[in-house]
Protein backbone atom coordinates (compact mmCIF):
# COMPACT_ATOMS: atom_id res chain seq x y z
CA UNK A 1 0.00 0.00 0.00
CA UNK A 2 2.73 2.45 0.98
CA UNK A 3 6.30 2.05 -0.17
CA UNK A 4 8.89 4.43 1.12
CA UNK A 5 12.31 3.88 -0.40
CA UNK A 6 15.50 5.47 0.91
CA UNK A 7 14.14 8.93 1.38
CA UNK A 8 16.33 11.74 2.63
CA UNK A 9 15.13 15.01 3.97
CA UNK A 10 17.12 17.92 5.32
CA UNK A 11 15.75 21.30 6.27
CA UNK A 12 17.26 24.50 4.94
CA UNK A 13 18.79 25.18 8.34
CA UNK A 14 20.92 22.07 7.86
CA UNK A 15 19.08 19.77 10.25
CA UNK A 16 18.66 16.30 8.82
CA UNK A 17 15.17 15.02 9.49
CA UNK A 18 15.21 11.71 7.63
CA UNK A 19 18.22 9.57 6.69
CA UNK A 20 17.86 6.85 4.06
CA UNK A 21 14.49 6.03 5.47
CA UNK A 22 12.59 3.03 4.09
CA UNK A 23 9.29 1.56 5.20
CA UNK A 24 6.62 -0.59 3.61
CA UNK A 25 3.07 -0.62 4.92
CA UNK A 26 0.62 -3.33 3.92
CA UNK A 27 -3.04 -2.76 3.20
CA UNK A 28 -5.11 -2.71 6.44
CA UNK A 29 -1.97 -2.52 8.52
CA UNK A 30 -1.76 -0.17 11.50
CA UNK A 31 1.78 1.08 11.93
CA UNK A 32 2.53 3.03 15.08
CA UNK A 33 5.61 5.24 15.01
CA UNK A 34 7.14 6.21 18.31
CA UNK A 35 10.34 7.92 19.28
CA UNK A 36 11.77 10.95 21.04
CA UNK A 37 10.79 14.38 19.77
CA UNK A 38 12.91 15.65 16.93
CA UNK A 39 13.38 12.15 15.54
CA UNK A 40 11.62 12.99 12.26
CA UNK A 41 8.26 11.31 12.90
CA UNK A 42 6.08 14.27 11.96
CA UNK A 43 8.30 15.15 9.03
CA UNK A 44 7.86 11.62 7.72
CA UNK A 45 4.07 11.97 7.73
CA UNK A 46 4.25 15.36 6.06
CA UNK A 47 6.44 13.91 3.32
CA UNK A 48 3.86 11.22 2.61
CA UNK A 49 1.27 13.62 1.21
CA UNK A 50 3.69 16.17 -0.15
CA UNK A 51 3.36 18.78 2.61
CA UNK A 52 7.14 18.54 2.82
CA UNK A 53 9.33 17.85 -0.20
CA UNK A 54 11.77 14.95 0.01
CA UNK A 55 15.32 15.51 -1.19
CA UNK A 56 15.99 11.98 -2.42
CA UNK A 57 14.30 8.60 -2.66
CA UNK A 58 10.79 7.65 -3.68
CA UNK A 59 7.33 7.34 -2.18
CA UNK A 60 4.63 5.24 -3.83
CA UNK A 61 1.13 5.12 -2.38
CA UNK A 62 -1.39 2.64 -3.75
CA UNK A 63 0.61 2.40 -6.95
CA UNK A 64 0.79 6.17 -7.44
CA UNK A 65 4.24 7.72 -7.26
CA UNK A 66 4.53 10.99 -5.35
CA UNK A 67 6.39 12.92 -8.06
CA UNK A 68 6.10 16.38 -9.49
CA UNK A 69 3.06 15.64 -11.63
CA UNK A 70 0.15 17.64 -10.30
CA UNK A 71 -2.31 14.88 -11.18
CA UNK A 72 -0.48 12.27 -9.09
CA UNK A 73 -0.09 14.65 -6.19
CA UNK A 74 -3.76 15.50 -6.16
CA UNK A 75 -4.65 11.81 -6.35
CA UNK A 76 -2.43 11.07 -3.36
CA UNK A 77 -3.85 13.98 -1.38
CA UNK A 78 -7.33 12.59 -2.02
CA UNK A 79 -6.34 9.07 -0.97
CA UNK A 80 -4.39 10.04 2.12
CA UNK A 81 -6.26 11.56 5.05
CA UNK A 82 -4.35 13.48 7.67
CA UNK A 83 -5.16 14.39 11.26
CA UNK A 84 -3.08 17.07 12.95
CA UNK A 85 -1.98 17.67 16.50
CA UNK A 86 -3.61 21.11 16.49
CA UNK A 87 -6.86 19.91 14.82
CA UNK A 88 -6.74 22.71 12.23
CA UNK A 89 -10.49 22.88 11.81
CA UNK A 90 -11.67 25.84 9.76
CA UNK A 91 -12.92 28.25 12.45
CA UNK A 92 -15.23 30.23 10.16
CA UNK A 93 -17.27 27.17 9.21
CA UNK A 94 -19.65 25.02 11.21
CA UNK A 95 -18.78 21.39 11.85
CA UNK A 96 -21.05 20.43 8.97
CA UNK A 97 -19.42 22.91 6.58
CA UNK A 98 -15.95 21.82 7.64
CA UNK A 99 -16.70 18.27 6.59
CA UNK A 100 -18.71 19.17 3.50
CA UNK A 101 -16.09 21.48 2.01
CA UNK A 102 -13.64 19.04 0.44
CA UNK A 103 -16.40 16.62 -0.57
CA UNK A 104 -18.03 19.36 -2.59
CA UNK A 105 -14.98 21.22 -3.84
CA UNK A 106 -12.65 18.29 -4.52
CA UNK A 107 -14.97 15.29 -4.95
CA UNK A 108 -17.62 17.47 -6.68
CA UNK A 109 -20.49 16.05 -4.66
CA UNK A 110 -23.79 17.90 -4.40
CA UNK A 111 -24.59 19.60 -1.10
CA UNK A 112 -27.22 16.97 -0.30
CA UNK A 113 -24.87 14.04 -0.98
CA UNK A 114 -22.12 15.69 1.05
CA UNK A 115 -24.44 16.32 3.98
CA UNK A 116 -25.57 12.73 3.99
CA UNK A 117 -21.97 11.47 4.19
CA UNK A 118 -21.17 14.08 6.80
CA UNK A 119 -24.02 13.04 9.07
CA UNK A 120 -23.03 9.38 8.76
CA UNK A 121 -19.46 10.22 9.73
CA UNK A 122 -20.52 12.47 12.59
CA UNK A 123 -22.65 9.65 13.94
CA UNK A 124 -19.68 7.36 13.62
CA UNK A 125 -17.47 9.64 15.69
CA UNK A 126 -20.39 10.17 18.05
CA UNK A 127 -20.82 13.90 17.69
CA UNK A 128 -23.80 14.23 15.33
CA UNK A 129 -25.57 16.68 17.67
CA UNK A 130 -22.83 19.25 17.09
CA UNK A 131 -23.22 19.52 13.32
CA UNK A 132 -24.32 23.14 13.51
CA UNK A 133 -21.73 24.31 16.04
CA UNK A 134 -18.58 26.25 15.30
CA UNK A 135 -15.25 24.63 16.23
CA UNK A 136 -14.60 27.19 18.97
CA UNK A 137 -17.74 25.98 20.75
CA UNK A 138 -16.40 22.42 21.00
CA UNK A 139 -13.97 20.83 23.43
CA UNK A 140 -10.58 19.70 22.17
CA UNK A 141 -11.62 16.07 22.05
CA UNK A 142 -14.74 16.93 20.08
CA UNK A 143 -12.74 19.08 17.69
CA UNK A 144 -10.30 16.29 17.02
CA UNK A 145 -13.11 13.84 16.35
CA UNK A 146 -14.57 16.32 13.86
CA UNK A 147 -11.13 16.58 12.26
CA UNK A 148 -11.04 12.80 11.91
CA UNK A 149 -14.50 12.81 10.34
CA UNK A 150 -13.38 15.56 7.99
CA UNK A 151 -10.44 13.47 6.80
CA UNK A 152 -12.62 10.36 6.45
CA UNK A 153 -15.13 12.27 4.32
CA UNK A 154 -12.69 12.08 1.41
CA UNK A 155 -12.94 8.27 1.63
CA UNK A 156 -9.17 7.94 1.98
CA UNK A 157 -7.36 4.63 1.65
CA UNK A 158 -4.73 5.66 4.18
CA UNK A 159 -5.01 7.73 7.34
CA UNK A 160 -2.08 9.56 8.91
CA UNK A 161 -2.30 10.67 12.53
CA UNK A 162 0.28 13.24 13.62
CA UNK A 163 0.24 13.17 17.44
CA UNK A 164 -3.52 13.44 17.31
CA UNK A 165 -3.93 13.37 21.09
CA UNK A 166 -0.91 15.41 22.21
CA UNK A 167 -2.79 18.70 22.46
CA UNK A 168 -5.69 17.25 24.44
CA UNK A 169 -6.55 17.31 28.11
CA UNK A 170 -6.06 13.85 29.64
CA UNK A 171 -9.78 13.16 30.06
CA UNK A 172 -10.38 13.73 26.36
CA UNK A 173 -7.64 11.50 25.03
CA UNK A 174 -9.75 8.38 25.48
CA UNK A 175 -12.62 9.47 23.26
CA UNK A 176 -10.27 10.23 20.37
CA UNK A 177 -8.29 7.02 20.82
CA UNK A 178 -11.56 5.04 20.78
CA UNK A 179 -12.42 6.50 17.39
CA UNK A 180 -8.95 5.59 16.13
CA UNK A 181 -9.21 2.04 17.50
CA UNK A 182 -12.54 1.54 15.77
CA UNK A 183 -11.04 2.73 12.51
CA UNK A 184 -8.22 0.25 12.93
CA UNK A 185 -10.70 -2.56 13.55
CA UNK A 186 -12.60 -1.65 10.41
CA UNK A 187 -9.45 -2.30 8.43
CA UNK A 188 -8.22 1.22 7.65
CA UNK A 189 -4.57 1.43 6.70
CA UNK A 190 -3.07 3.76 9.28
CA UNK A 191 0.23 5.33 10.19
CA UNK A 192 0.01 6.73 13.69
CA UNK A 193 2.61 8.94 15.31
CA UNK A 194 1.84 8.96 19.00
CA UNK A 195 3.11 8.99 22.55
CA UNK A 196 0.18 6.83 23.73
CA UNK A 197 1.81 3.48 24.44
CA UNK A 198 -1.53 1.98 25.47
CA UNK A 199 -2.89 2.65 22.01
CA UNK A 200 0.30 1.32 20.41
CA UNK A 201 0.05 -1.94 22.33
CA UNK A 202 -3.62 -2.43 21.71
CA UNK A 203 -4.17 -1.29 18.16
CA UNK A 204 -0.75 -1.36 16.55
CA UNK A 205 0.04 -4.23 14.20
CA UNK A 206 3.60 -3.07 14.00
CA UNK A 207 5.63 -0.65 16.10
CA UNK A 208 8.37 1.40 14.52
CA UNK A 209 10.83 3.09 16.83
CA UNK A 210 12.58 6.08 15.28
CA UNK A 211 15.50 8.16 16.47
CA UNK A 212 17.51 10.78 14.59
CA UNK A 213 15.68 10.23 11.31
CA UNK A 214 16.26 6.50 11.19
CA UNK A 215 14.43 3.35 12.19
CA UNK A 216 16.12 1.92 15.24
CA UNK A 217 13.91 -1.09 15.66
CA UNK A 218 10.58 -2.38 14.49
CA UNK A 219 8.39 -5.38 15.24
CA UNK A 220 4.98 -6.58 16.34
CA UNK A 221 3.73 -4.74 19.39
CA UNK A 222 4.10 -7.83 21.56
CA UNK A 223 7.70 -8.45 20.62
CA UNK A 224 8.59 -4.77 20.63
CA UNK A 225 7.34 -4.00 24.11
CA UNK A 226 8.31 -7.30 25.76
CA UNK A 227 11.59 -8.17 24.07
CA UNK A 228 13.22 -5.13 22.57
CA UNK A 229 16.60 -5.95 21.05
CA UNK A 230 18.41 -2.66 20.73
CA UNK A 231 19.91 -0.80 23.65
CA UNK A 232 18.46 2.55 22.40
CA UNK A 233 14.97 1.05 22.41
CA UNK A 234 15.32 -0.33 25.91
CA UNK A 235 16.53 3.03 27.12
CA UNK A 236 13.55 4.82 25.53
CA UNK A 237 11.03 2.32 26.89
CA UNK A 238 12.48 2.50 30.37
CA UNK A 239 12.04 6.27 30.29
CA UNK A 240 8.37 6.17 29.45
CA UNK A 241 7.25 3.22 31.56
Amino acid at each position, binding site marked *: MIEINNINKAFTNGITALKNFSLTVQRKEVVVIIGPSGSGKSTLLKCLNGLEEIDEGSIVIDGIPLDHQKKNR*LEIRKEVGMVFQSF*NLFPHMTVMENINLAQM*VVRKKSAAQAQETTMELLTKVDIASKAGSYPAQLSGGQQQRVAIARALAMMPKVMLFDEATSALDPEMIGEVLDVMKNLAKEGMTMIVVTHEMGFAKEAGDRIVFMADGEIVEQGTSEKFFNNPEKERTKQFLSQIF
Partner: protein
Amino acid sequence: MKKKLIKINVLDVLIILAVLAMGSWFVFRINTALDYQWNWSIIPQYMFRFDAEHGWVPNMLMQGFFMTIKLSIWSTILAVILGTTMGLCKISGSLYKRLISNSYVEIIRNVPPLVLVFIFYFFIGDQIMTVLGVGDTVRSFSDTTKFWINIFFAPAPQFPEFLSAVITLGLYEGAYITEIIRSGIESIEKGQWEASYALGLSKSQQMIHVVLPQAVQRILPPLAGQFISIIKDSAIVSVISIQELTFQGMELMAATFLTFEIWITITALYFFLTFFCSLAAGWIENRYRESGYLA
Protein backbone atom coordinates in the same frame (compact mmCIF):
# COMPACT_ATOMS: atom_id res chain seq x y z
CA MET B 1 -21.77 45.11 32.32
CA LYS B 2 -22.01 47.79 34.95
CA LYS B 3 -21.18 51.29 33.90
CA LYS B 4 -18.05 52.60 35.52
CA LEU B 5 -18.44 55.73 37.57
CA ILE B 6 -16.36 58.52 36.16
CA LYS B 7 -14.13 60.01 38.79
CA ILE B 8 -12.70 63.44 38.18
CA ASN B 9 -9.50 64.27 40.03
CA VAL B 10 -7.50 67.45 40.36
CA LEU B 11 -5.35 66.74 37.31
CA ASP B 12 -8.43 66.34 35.10
CA VAL B 13 -9.81 69.67 36.27
CA LEU B 14 -6.47 71.35 35.57
CA ILE B 15 -6.33 69.90 32.04
CA ILE B 16 -9.90 70.99 31.27
CA LEU B 17 -9.13 74.49 32.57
CA ALA B 18 -5.96 74.65 30.50
CA VAL B 19 -7.83 73.68 27.32
CA LEU B 20 -10.54 76.26 27.99
CA ALA B 21 -7.93 78.91 28.71
CA MET B 22 -6.13 78.14 25.47
CA GLY B 23 -9.37 78.45 23.50
CA SER B 24 -10.29 81.74 25.14
CA TRP B 25 -6.82 83.10 24.56
CA PHE B 26 -7.06 82.29 20.84
CA VAL B 27 -10.38 84.05 20.52
CA PHE B 28 -9.06 86.96 22.53
CA ARG B 29 -5.97 87.24 20.30
CA ILE B 30 -8.04 87.07 17.14
CA ASN B 31 -10.44 89.72 18.43
CA THR B 32 -7.90 92.16 19.82
CA ALA B 33 -4.62 91.72 17.95
CA LEU B 34 -6.17 91.03 14.55
CA ASP B 35 -9.20 93.17 15.17
CA TYR B 36 -11.15 90.43 13.45
CA GLN B 37 -14.84 90.92 12.66
CA TRP B 38 -16.63 87.63 13.23
CA ASN B 39 -19.45 87.05 10.82
CA TRP B 40 -20.95 83.60 11.26
CA SER B 41 -24.28 84.56 9.75
CA ILE B 42 -22.86 84.36 6.23
CA ILE B 43 -21.74 80.71 6.53
CA PRO B 44 -25.14 78.92 6.26
CA GLN B 45 -25.83 80.40 2.86
CA TYR B 46 -22.64 78.83 1.55
CA MET B 47 -23.88 75.46 2.73
CA PHE B 48 -27.35 75.64 1.19
CA ARG B 49 -28.83 78.35 -0.95
CA PHE B 50 -32.36 78.96 -2.18
CA ASP B 51 -32.83 78.53 -5.87
CA ALA B 52 -35.99 79.97 -7.44
CA GLU B 53 -36.32 76.94 -9.69
CA HIS B 54 -35.18 74.01 -7.52
CA GLY B 55 -35.79 75.20 -3.98
CA TRP B 56 -32.98 74.59 -1.50
CA VAL B 57 -29.84 73.33 -3.19
CA PRO B 58 -26.36 72.66 -1.79
CA ASN B 59 -24.01 75.56 -2.19
CA MET B 60 -20.20 75.56 -2.41
CA LEU B 61 -19.40 74.06 0.98
CA MET B 62 -21.88 71.23 0.72
CA GLN B 63 -20.97 70.63 -2.91
CA GLY B 64 -17.38 70.25 -1.76
CA PHE B 65 -18.48 68.01 1.07
CA PHE B 66 -20.33 65.68 -1.31
CA MET B 67 -17.45 65.77 -3.75
CA THR B 68 -15.10 64.67 -0.98
CA ILE B 69 -17.41 61.75 -0.17
CA LYS B 70 -17.71 60.65 -3.81
CA LEU B 71 -13.97 61.02 -4.32
CA SER B 72 -13.26 58.94 -1.21
CA ILE B 73 -15.68 56.17 -2.09
CA TRP B 74 -14.47 55.73 -5.67
CA SER B 75 -10.81 55.94 -4.62
CA THR B 76 -11.43 53.32 -1.94
CA ILE B 77 -13.06 50.95 -4.41
CA LEU B 78 -10.13 51.33 -6.78
CA ALA B 79 -7.61 51.05 -3.94
CA VAL B 80 -9.21 47.87 -2.58
CA ILE B 81 -9.20 46.20 -6.00
CA LEU B 82 -5.61 47.25 -6.59
CA GLY B 83 -4.52 46.42 -3.04
CA THR B 84 -6.08 42.96 -3.15
CA THR B 85 -4.46 42.13 -6.48
CA MET B 86 -1.07 43.42 -5.36
CA GLY B 87 -1.43 41.84 -1.91
CA LEU B 88 -2.02 38.46 -3.51
CA CYS B 89 0.94 39.04 -5.84
CA LYS B 90 3.08 39.88 -2.84
CA ILE B 91 2.60 36.48 -1.22
CA SER B 92 2.76 34.65 -4.54
CA GLY B 93 5.45 32.07 -5.22
CA SER B 94 6.28 33.71 -8.52
CA LEU B 95 9.24 36.06 -8.34
CA TYR B 96 7.86 38.08 -11.25
CA LYS B 97 4.61 38.87 -9.45
CA ARG B 98 6.43 39.70 -6.24
CA LEU B 99 8.73 42.02 -8.16
CA ILE B 100 5.77 43.93 -9.60
CA SER B 101 3.97 44.32 -6.29
CA ASN B 102 7.12 45.18 -4.33
CA SER B 103 8.12 47.83 -6.86
CA TYR B 104 4.64 49.31 -6.75
CA VAL B 105 4.52 49.50 -2.97
CA GLU B 106 8.05 50.82 -2.56
CA ILE B 107 7.71 53.52 -5.22
CA ILE B 108 4.40 54.78 -3.87
CA ARG B 109 5.44 54.71 -0.24
CA ASN B 110 8.73 56.48 -0.79
CA VAL B 111 7.42 59.46 -2.74
CA PRO B 112 5.55 62.37 -1.11
CA PRO B 113 1.84 62.16 -1.97
CA LEU B 114 1.77 65.74 -3.17
CA VAL B 115 4.46 64.94 -5.73
CA LEU B 116 2.52 61.86 -6.81
CA VAL B 117 -0.57 64.00 -7.31
CA PHE B 118 1.30 66.29 -9.71
CA ILE B 119 2.97 63.44 -11.57
CA PHE B 120 -0.26 61.52 -12.01
CA TYR B 121 -2.18 64.66 -12.89
CA PHE B 122 0.13 65.62 -15.71
CA PHE B 123 0.47 62.04 -16.93
CA ILE B 124 -2.99 60.64 -16.49
CA GLY B 125 -5.02 63.83 -16.58
CA ASP B 126 -3.16 65.65 -19.28
CA GLN B 127 -1.90 62.87 -21.50
CA ILE B 128 -3.77 59.62 -21.09
CA MET B 129 -7.22 61.18 -20.62
CA THR B 130 -6.74 63.34 -23.69
CA VAL B 131 -5.48 60.46 -25.81
CA LEU B 132 -8.35 58.25 -24.69
CA GLY B 133 -10.73 61.11 -25.39
CA VAL B 134 -12.49 60.77 -22.04
CA GLY B 135 -13.57 64.41 -22.01
CA ASP B 136 -15.02 64.26 -25.53
CA THR B 137 -16.81 61.00 -24.79
CA VAL B 138 -18.45 62.41 -21.69
CA ARG B 139 -19.42 65.61 -23.54
CA SER B 140 -21.13 63.54 -26.24
CA PHE B 141 -23.34 61.71 -23.73
CA SER B 142 -27.05 62.45 -23.53
CA ASP B 143 -28.33 64.81 -20.85
CA THR B 144 -29.75 61.97 -18.75
CA THR B 145 -26.38 60.21 -18.70
CA LYS B 146 -24.71 63.49 -17.80
CA PHE B 147 -27.22 63.92 -14.99
CA TRP B 148 -26.30 60.55 -13.48
CA ILE B 149 -22.60 61.17 -14.00
CA ASN B 150 -23.08 64.37 -12.04
CA ILE B 151 -24.82 62.48 -9.23
CA PHE B 152 -22.35 59.62 -8.93
CA PHE B 153 -19.11 61.23 -10.09
CA ALA B 154 -18.67 64.90 -10.94
CA PRO B 155 -20.20 67.48 -13.26
CA ALA B 156 -19.57 66.30 -16.82
CA PRO B 157 -17.05 69.03 -17.78
CA GLN B 158 -14.88 68.13 -14.79
CA PHE B 159 -15.17 64.39 -15.28
CA PRO B 160 -11.62 63.79 -16.66
CA GLU B 161 -10.07 65.67 -13.72
CA PHE B 162 -12.26 63.77 -11.29
CA LEU B 163 -11.20 60.49 -12.85
CA SER B 164 -7.52 61.31 -12.65
CA ALA B 165 -7.95 62.37 -9.03
CA VAL B 166 -9.64 59.04 -8.24
CA ILE B 167 -6.87 57.13 -10.00
CA THR B 168 -4.21 59.13 -8.16
CA LEU B 169 -5.75 58.57 -4.74
CA GLY B 170 -6.56 54.96 -5.59
CA LEU B 171 -2.98 54.24 -6.63
CA TYR B 172 -1.62 55.99 -3.56
CA GLU B 173 -3.88 54.31 -1.00
CA GLY B 174 -3.69 50.99 -2.85
CA ALA B 175 -0.08 50.63 -1.73
CA TYR B 176 -1.13 50.78 1.91
CA ILE B 177 -4.05 48.44 1.33
CA THR B 178 -1.63 46.01 -0.34
CA GLU B 179 0.22 45.75 2.96
CA ILE B 180 -3.03 45.38 4.92
CA ILE B 181 -4.17 42.52 2.67
CA ARG B 182 -0.76 40.85 2.75
CA SER B 183 -0.45 40.93 6.51
CA GLY B 184 -4.07 39.77 6.87
CA ILE B 185 -3.43 36.71 4.75
CA GLU B 186 -0.08 35.99 6.36
CA SER B 187 -1.68 36.14 9.81
CA ILE B 188 -3.68 32.98 9.06
CA GLU B 189 -2.10 29.98 10.78
CA LYS B 190 0.01 27.63 8.70
CA GLY B 191 -2.18 24.74 9.89
CA GLN B 192 -5.13 26.10 7.91
CA TRP B 193 -3.16 25.86 4.68
CA GLU B 194 -1.86 22.42 5.64
CA ALA B 195 -5.26 21.02 6.54
CA SER B 196 -6.90 22.24 3.35
CA TYR B 197 -3.93 21.04 1.30
CA ALA B 198 -4.20 17.59 2.87
CA LEU B 199 -7.89 17.48 1.94
CA GLY B 200 -6.97 17.92 -1.71
CA LEU B 201 -7.90 21.56 -2.24
CA SER B 202 -5.91 23.37 -4.91
CA LYS B 203 -3.92 26.47 -4.04
CA SER B 204 -6.68 28.81 -5.20
CA GLN B 205 -9.39 26.75 -3.49
CA GLN B 206 -7.40 26.92 -0.24
CA MET B 207 -7.28 30.68 -0.67
CA ILE B 208 -10.93 31.18 -1.59
CA HIS B 209 -12.62 28.78 0.82
CA VAL B 210 -10.33 28.71 3.81
CA VAL B 211 -7.83 31.54 4.05
CA LEU B 212 -9.55 34.62 2.58
CA PRO B 213 -12.79 34.34 4.58
CA GLN B 214 -10.75 34.29 7.77
CA ALA B 215 -8.38 36.99 6.58
CA VAL B 216 -11.27 39.34 5.72
CA GLN B 217 -12.28 39.49 9.37
CA ARG B 218 -8.80 40.58 10.34
CA ILE B 219 -8.49 42.93 7.37
CA LEU B 220 -11.75 44.85 7.91
CA PRO B 221 -10.74 46.98 10.92
CA PRO B 222 -7.50 48.32 9.40
CA LEU B 223 -9.32 48.75 6.09
CA ALA B 224 -11.93 50.94 7.76
CA GLY B 225 -9.07 52.97 9.22
CA GLN B 226 -7.59 53.33 5.75
CA PHE B 227 -10.92 54.61 4.42
CA ILE B 228 -10.80 57.37 7.01
CA SER B 229 -7.26 58.16 5.85
CA ILE B 230 -8.52 58.38 2.29
CA ILE B 231 -11.16 60.93 3.30
CA LYS B 232 -8.48 63.06 4.90
CA ASP B 233 -5.90 62.53 2.15
CA SER B 234 -8.45 63.51 -0.50
CA ALA B 235 -7.84 67.13 0.52
CA ILE B 236 -4.56 66.92 -1.34
CA VAL B 237 -6.19 66.81 -4.77
CA SER B 238 -7.42 70.36 -4.20
CA VAL B 239 -4.08 71.36 -5.75
CA ILE B 240 -5.26 70.02 -9.10
CA SER B 241 -8.51 71.98 -8.92
CA ILE B 242 -10.82 69.17 -7.90
CA GLN B 243 -13.68 71.01 -6.25
CA GLU B 244 -13.76 69.10 -3.03
CA LEU B 245 -14.15 70.49 0.46
CA THR B 246 -10.67 71.96 0.92
CA PHE B 247 -10.65 73.53 -2.54
CA GLN B 248 -14.04 75.14 -1.95
CA GLY B 249 -12.75 76.44 1.36
CA MET B 250 -9.83 78.17 -0.33
CA GLU B 251 -12.11 79.63 -2.99
CA LEU B 252 -14.55 80.94 -0.39
CA MET B 253 -11.76 82.38 1.69
CA ALA B 254 -10.45 84.31 -1.29
CA ALA B 255 -13.92 85.66 -1.95
CA THR B 256 -15.10 86.51 1.56
CA PHE B 257 -11.92 86.79 3.71
CA LEU B 258 -13.79 85.00 6.52
CA THR B 259 -10.74 82.84 7.21
CA PHE B 260 -11.61 81.57 10.67
CA GLU B 261 -15.31 80.91 10.13
CA ILE B 262 -14.67 78.98 6.93
CA TRP B 263 -11.85 76.82 8.23
CA ILE B 264 -13.65 76.10 11.47
CA THR B 265 -16.68 75.03 9.45
CA ILE B 266 -14.54 72.86 7.18
CA THR B 267 -12.80 71.29 10.15
CA ALA B 268 -16.19 70.47 11.61
CA LEU B 269 -17.40 68.96 8.33
CA TYR B 270 -14.30 66.74 7.99
CA PHE B 271 -14.55 65.75 11.63
CA PHE B 272 -18.23 64.95 11.28
CA LEU B 273 -17.49 62.70 8.29
CA THR B 274 -14.49 60.84 9.68
CA PHE B 275 -15.91 60.52 13.18
CA PHE B 276 -19.10 59.05 11.75
CA CYS B 277 -16.96 56.59 9.77
CA SER B 278 -14.98 55.56 12.87
CA LEU B 279 -18.23 54.92 14.72
CA ALA B 280 -19.51 52.85 11.81
CA ALA B 281 -16.24 50.92 11.65
CA GLY B 282 -16.40 50.21 15.38
CA TRP B 283 -19.96 49.03 15.03
CA ILE B 284 -19.10 46.68 12.14
CA GLU B 285 -16.16 45.31 14.11
CA ASN B 286 -18.36 44.64 17.13
CA ARG B 287 -21.02 42.95 15.06
CA TYR B 288 -18.40 40.72 13.48
CA ARG B 289 -17.12 39.78 16.89
CA GLU B 290 -20.59 39.03 18.23
CA SER B 291 -21.83 37.03 15.26
CA GLY B 292 -18.43 35.47 14.64
CA TYR B 293 -17.03 32.13 15.52
CA LEU B 294 -14.64 33.51 18.13
CA ALA B 295 -16.90 32.23 20.89
